[in-house]
């Protein structure tokens, strides 16, 4: 009777199955170089003075009363946007999910429009409407100085930009909530309002908190709106930008970025704890999801009025941008002209093509890498896999400005210089999309019964062959959906790329920003319209191109 040590059995077994040995180091290397290294580099810039660990830089930052004001401004803005946005999103989601109103597809479409647009468009639209030469403020009311710039303007711009993300989250919650729970309450004699109050809302509490934290973190990460609308209300992201681009004070900028990191990371882990603790909100599990719609006339009218007004505001934004794109000089000369579109398609053609190319490449990388990491996490027992997963997911917690700055600084000097290359932009895009790639990969793999892997193995396939022949074809729809999402995210971000673009490789969002800086509002508007159309085309075109089975799986 031979006795075999446990390790020898497994190692010998895996020794002939090389896939993991190739995939794992490759994925780990990417994550270490492009996620861990820039962040460590940033931290060291903030905490190391003359080769020693020191709190001097951070201390100086915190001691400066102006910086403290900026910090509190950021928190105040985030909290306001979080609370108001969550309320808006919840009402909007409730109206769409539960109230019998006509035109739901239309309301849904317009509510999602901001999720596929660069947030900077909201600032653009607001300035055209309510700015010093705004259509409404100046033309209609003749007001010269406008209260748009500052806290109020920022709240409005961020609400329109980010409430749709919270709306999507709440919509899924309302739809996923087990209808039989509500039916049970109803059979026990509770009326509609009582069911909502005693059953539905308590179950939604984690979701509401999640939506609020989501809004908070988006507000933190926003750079475009604060730069254009901030006025005398500076926030951390715009302050970091000024520090780096305006004053070229890198240690100060890095220290500010680290300071912004603290609340962002806290918020992220609070959210994680919350969702893991309150998983009883049995969302999306079995049970019936056929909800009875509310048919109370008053409620229907109120819901219709509400979604109608929000949609009107959103349409006004986009309509104004379109108007700005086709008029000589919005606010001064309303004569129609194609010159802005022509300018956008000629002068900014490079930015458009670069955005498209780099976005596609990066989304491909993030989705494939995400699947491989998901595979390592969900299907193997490779040591250290959870650490890799953790690091790869960190960008979820880190505001885009901070990642962008960390990238710009870390790869601007040895050992790895990428400044001015396409690689640095692709990497910045990919790193920020990777967590979503992993998440959708894990979700897709968890849908596939493990016995399929085992069947494949017993029939002689290595894990690589199993991945290629069995798992990959089955997760392909999820992969494509992930690619579209990742592409949209890359195209619309400003904060993550503003520190890594270069004359060789320019992108659309920084171009819009600089056009607005120069006062070329018409060109900025035209370029904005083109970007939104491009994203819409990809989102709706790709599934159609790929045929029926993709849409079904979606």
């Amino acid at each position, binding site marked *: *009777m*031979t*006795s*075999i040590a*446990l390790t*020898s*059995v*497994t190692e*010998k*077994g*895996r*020794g*002939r*199955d090389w896939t993991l040995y190739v995939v794992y180091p490759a994925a780990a290397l990417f994550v270490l170089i492009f996620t861990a290294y820039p962040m460590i580099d940033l931290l060291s810039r903030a905490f190391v003075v003359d080769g020693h660990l020191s709190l001097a830089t951070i201390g100086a930052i915190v001691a400066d009363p102006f910086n403290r004001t900026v910090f509190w401004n950021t928190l105040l803005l985030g909290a306001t946007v979080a609370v108001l946005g969550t309320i808006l999103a919840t009402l909007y989601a409730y109206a769409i999910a539960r109230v019998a109103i006509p035109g739901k597809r239309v309301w849904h479409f317009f509510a999602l429009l901001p999720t596929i647009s660069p947030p900077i468009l909201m600032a653009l639209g607001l300035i055209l409407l309510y700015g010093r030469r705004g259509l409404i403020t100046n033309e209609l009311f003749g007001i010269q100085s406008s209260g748009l710039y500052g806290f109020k303007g920022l709240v409005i711009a961020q609400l329109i930009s980010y409430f749709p993300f919270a709306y999507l989250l709440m919509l899924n919650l309302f739809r996923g909530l087990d209808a039989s729970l509500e039916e049970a309450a109803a059979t026990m004699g509770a009326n509609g309002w009582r069911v909502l109050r005693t059953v539905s809302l308590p179950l939604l509490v984690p979701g509401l908190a999640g939506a609020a934290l989501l809004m908070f973190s988006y507000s933190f990460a926003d750079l475009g709106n604060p730069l254009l609308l901030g006025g005398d209300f500076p926030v951390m992201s715009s302050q970091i930008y000024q520090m780096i681009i305006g004053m070229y004070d890198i240690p100060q900028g890095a220290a500010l970025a680290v300071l912004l990191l603290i609340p962002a990371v806290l918020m992220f882990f609070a959210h994680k704890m919350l969702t893991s603790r309150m998983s009883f909100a049995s969302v999306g599990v079995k049970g019936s999801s056929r909800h009875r719609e509310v048919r109370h006339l008053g409620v229907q009218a109120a819901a219709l009025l509400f979604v109608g007004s929000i949609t009107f505001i959103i349409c006004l934004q986009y309509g104004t941008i379109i108007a700005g794109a086709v008029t000589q000089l919005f606010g001064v000369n309303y004569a129609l002209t194609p010159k802005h579109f022509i300018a956008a398609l000629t002068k900014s053609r490079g930015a458009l093509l670069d955005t498209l190319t780099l976005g596609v490449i990066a989304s491909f990388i993030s989705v494939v890498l995400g699947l491989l990491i998901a595979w390592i996490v969900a299907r193997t027992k490779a040591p250290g896999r959870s650490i890799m997963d953790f690091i790869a997911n960190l960008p979820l917690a880190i505001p885009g400005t901070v990642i962008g700055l960390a990238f710009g600084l870390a790869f601007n000097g040895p050992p790895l210089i990428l400044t001015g290359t396409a690689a640095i932009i692709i990497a910045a895009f990919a790193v920020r999309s990777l967590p979503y790639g992993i998440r959708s990969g894990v979700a897709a793999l968890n849908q596939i*019964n493990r*016995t*399929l892997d*085992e*069947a*494949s*193995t*017993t*029939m*002689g*396939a*290595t894990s690589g*062959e199993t991945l290629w*022949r*069995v798992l990959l*074809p*089955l997760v392909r729809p999820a992969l494509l959906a992930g690619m579209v999402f990742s592409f949209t995210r890359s195209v619309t971000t400003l904060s993550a790329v503003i520190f890594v673009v270069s004359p060789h490789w320019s992108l659309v969002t920084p171009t819009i920003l600089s056009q607005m800086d120069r006062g070329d509002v018409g060109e900025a508007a035209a370029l904005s319209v083109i970007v939104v159309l491009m994203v819409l085309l990809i989102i709706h075109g790709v599934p159609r191109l790929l045929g029926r089975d993709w849409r079904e799986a979606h």
Partner: protein
Amino acid sequence: MKMETARAKALSIKGLNKSYRIGRGRRLPVVTDFNLSLAPGEFVTLLGPSGCGKTTVLRTLAGLEEFEEGEILLDSRSIARLPPHHRRIGLVFQNYALFPHMSVFDNVAYSLRIRRVAEAQIGTEVKTALTAVGLEDYGPRLPGQLSGGQQQRVAVARALVMNPDLLLFDEPLSNLDAKLRVQVRSELRRLQQRLGTTALFVTHDQDEAMSLSDRIAVMRAGRIEQIGPPEEIYARPATLFVAQFVGKVNALPAQVTGYEGGAASVDVLGQMLRVQAPAALRDSDVLALIRPEAVVLQQPGSGLAGRVEEVEYLGDQTEYRVRIGSALVTAVRSTLGKSWRIKEGDHLGVAFDEDAVHLLPREGNLPT
């Protein structure tokens, strides 16, 4: 219809030990000192309740689970250290594990394509395998378009086409409805006999085990409790656990009063019986195991005096719970052709069929 078959191989599992980690330094044994040998072409069933380790043994053979100690031999070649994809062991899963994105043909062809067999040969081999399970026309279908029974047969064809050294079945019939299960299991048995592949089948269903197997190994808590042909397992169970797992049984405490010529004289509830028994049981407290069908119900006055406490009508049979003194005995009679109807509360006589009584030492076999 002929399938290429390799010479059937003998399987030998020696001293297999496996445990799961359940926290720091503590391990829960799932398979303990497991020994089992299968002759070439033999069909053996691992039978046991859920959690007894039978599926673990199967998965260990396929290489899907690691183990601490032991040796696995196919003929004289050790496969214990081979990675699963080099073992050539066909495994039919409980949920069939058909690849949903591949046609029936592609599912069956999978192992051949992995081995880079020429497409022309794949065509003939897949056709042969599908014909063997009666699905020769279903090649282009997707698994989702097949019934449960058909999916199950595709899974079998997929395992057969590998021309495996050993066929493993992990409760492959448990997802079929009762009628289909009976039909598929006899098909399975015929197929295995024709191909002559050595097969190990895991189930918790004693009917399945009885009807399919050359031998049954009854497992309990990671060990084999008894191994033998179905008749032996049923008629002469080694332990009360085995007796109860393969069917209903009356376990009556009894006294051996004499021993002569390989047979013991036993007093069971007052009836004296002569029962074949090993000499070790001489002069000891025993349990008399009597199957319900060996309990004979008679008109009052003959045999032991009993009173019917419960009647359970089961269609083809009727079951009776009869009180004899302090003991409650279960009897069963065919429902048809009986002029004498027995009702609750009836007094009647009870006798035990001497030839169908089996004795176990009372020690270690607590009656339940």
